[in-house]
């Protein structure tokens, strides 16, 4: 694409557009730094973790400690969490979006019900354009995949942009590696 020829350009464009969409972008060397961020964001609340996260980073749940709830909770439990941690399968520079692939209903609840959501994304999974979906989503369609771009929002009252309706109010995108 026009302005995303190199890997660095792609990462820079992703960060810019994710920020434009009001995601809060972090860069961390690996998942060990994530637990500190999650605990800080959660305050005294609990932290829901989705199954793609525990599959990719098995140690994260334990490193967060007792405030973390493992995957597979009832929706009502997840709805009480202060923070949800989910895995991004792709980052898309064209739109600043993070693709979530979530087979289980309980995992989707983790990315939607808590007011704060942390999306973990491997640097190597950031692609220039939406065309990356052709391979990652459409070659073998998963049950349920979502491009998410910033926090939930509405403009239904007088077209005034308001952040945080049914989904998270704050979305943190953590680029790992």
């Amino acid at each position, binding site marked *: 694409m026009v302005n995303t020829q190199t890997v660095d350009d792609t990462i820079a464009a992703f960060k810019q557009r994710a920020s434009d969409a009001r995601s809060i972008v972090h860069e961390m060397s690996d998942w060990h730094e994530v637990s500190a961020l999650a605990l800080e964001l959660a305050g005294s609340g609990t932290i829901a973790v989705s199954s793609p996260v525990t599959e990719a980073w098995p140690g994260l749940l334990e490193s967060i400690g007792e405030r973390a709830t493992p995957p597979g909770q009832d929706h009502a439990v997840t709805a009480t969490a202060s923070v949800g941690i989910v895995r991004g399968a792709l980052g898309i520079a064209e739109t600043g979006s993070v693709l979530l692939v979530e087979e289980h209903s309980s995992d989707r609840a983790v990315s939607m019900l808590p007011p704060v959501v942390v999306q973990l994304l491997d640097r190597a999974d950031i692609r220039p354009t939406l065309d990356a979906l052709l391979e990652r989503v459409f070659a073998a369609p998963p049950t349920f*995949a979502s491009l998410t771009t910033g*926090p939930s929002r509405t403009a239904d009252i007088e077209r005034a942009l308001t952040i945080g309706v049914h989904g998270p109010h704050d979305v943190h995108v953590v680029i790992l590696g």
Partner: protein
Amino acid sequence: MTASTEPHGPQVDPFPERYAKALADPNIRDGLLDFQRSWRTTRDAQMESLEAITGFTFGDLRERLTTAKDHVIADPAGHVARFRRAAEARGVRVVQVRSADEANAYIAQLCRERGVSLVVKGKSMVSEEIGLNAALAEAGIEAVETDLGEWLLQLDGDHPSHLVMPAIHKRRHQVAALFTRVLGRPFDPDDIPAMVVAARTELRSRFLAAGLGVTGANALIAETGTAMLVTNEGNGRLTSSLPPVHVITTGVEKVLPTAADAITQIRLLARSATAQPITTYTTFISAPAPGHELHVVIIDNGRSVMAAQHGLEDAMRCIRCGACANVCPAYQVVGGHAFGHVYTGPIGLVTTGFHHGLDAADGPQSLCVSCGACATVCPVTIPLPQQILEVRQRVLAQRPDGWRTRLALRAFASRTVVAAAMRVGAIALAPLRRGQFTRLAFGIASRYVSWRTPPALPARPARDQAAEVSPRAITGSPLAGRRIAFFLQCVGDRLAPEIPLAAITLLRAAGAEVNIPSAQHCCGLPAFDAGDRDNARRMARDTIVALEGSDDVVTPAPSCVVAMLKEYRTLFDDDPAWQARAQRLAERVYDLVGYLSGPGRLPAGSLASGASDAVAVHRFCQGSNMLDAGDRLERLIAELTGVEVVPLYEAEVCCGFGGSTSVRAPEISAGILERKLANVGAAGAPILVTDNPGCVLHLRGGADAARAPFRVMHVAEFLAARLPRD
């Protein structure tokens, strides 16, 4: 359009009531004016940056998506079968139903079988179309809307007035009052975030308790059996994920052949709908979650009839972005409850008849001013202005009193009848004549004249005066040797002869040989615009014959040129011989500005004498939207006269004259005119120049009635007044 006999969908008040109610509510036009202006600015900025971001222009992408949609229109059954095979292989239940009733019955039965008493709903226009909420209520099932706009409408017993922004007709103080009433605690109109938090809290418990979720789909991807769902609030993701049963209500028009087409749609949809590069959530659903059920209900409800209509099948491309409403000047005046039915805005005027019966289409379609703005922003190139006129023909044909319109237009089609009537009128109204206007008796406050002073009826039409025009030649006679057949245009000829006479003066001064074929009358546009095809063809044929046998054809009326270039093609699409003659006319006809900007170009500065007051320029809407005229009128004035042209905000937005709208729905004309006059007033120039005679009379009468501080001139008058004098 006859198949949909029984009305379906929610109870909608009769059109005259909706129209009167909308006119009486200033919140609608004030709110929509703000909305249209902010949308236009942000949408244009999005389209501007599109190529730098994606490598594609708006034109590239809309062409691709149009092609993809046309593949489905050519073979709907094949594409649905492909979607069904792929989806069913992954455990999705795909159901095709013929009618709204069947769809509602299927969903109600599913609720009963699964013991569901509470349903949550994401935004779905198809569910509005079929009246799902009412049908579920009848079955004892509560359906709760979860899109904020839809929810507050449900609380208020109201219904959407826009495809994407359902509650855009409500202002913040109305929403605060509603929430205060329903939720039993006070809300501050200026604290929108507090209202949003209240919605989140109220609806969260419903999401967790519901046994079934209903959403629409923005696309069904045939190749992969995937439903695509686009939302900002996240209610679609919750509705489709939390309840154990998810039902998608949709129509065949949502089917796309491939996943690559879906990506094209993503690039266009949010930019066109909400002026975002992408919405917050774009979800691809290909199978039910483990332990859950997924049903896709594909509803016909008139769609297969629509797809079989020559000239209307393109409406099946619609992706429900609502862009057409966002630029529609008539929609701004009354909103979607009047300008539409269940489906609102320009596309609603086309599709309503198929889903809800031709009677439901009758009232709203009469509000279209034919300005053509909708087609310029449509991301799937639906020829909306032509389609609305096509619907108008059908409405006229079935209307019990349609014969009156046809009879009146039959009389108007006759040059001699019109000439006689105008002579009588001019004599009768002569005592009321004051300059350019007819001053009616003080106190007459009709819906037709209170906001626009009618023009004076001239004693002699332009055709009787043309021979007397012999101006002093411009140095060098730049148009010497050109033979022009001049088309006066009926409005100018009979109501504003000064306009065609000024144009003739200019052309003769430049050395052209200007002839006025005596058999000419009206191009047929008024009949075409009224939906009367027979009389339109009659007048078009007479015009073609009258203008044959000269080099160039020039008219001071670009509206007639649009008719000759665009409408004549449709009028004669079943008559190759006349089509060919119409084509030969199309190749050599020019409006005055087009002529002076092209083959009849005069030397720069050749009209530099005269006053140097700055002017504002109103761009004839159809010229901008259908002829790609751009800023050629501004450039022509600047180049020939050196006069300063001040910028006019929304210069290309219709002035409200729009064909027969000022007769059929004068309040719409008046409302659009008000917007235009306010913009011209703000521009601050003492003269407004424009190039279509109908618009000149309309703007002149409106400016007079409003006592506006500027004069309105046709470009021919403005330029002719600057010819060198002795």
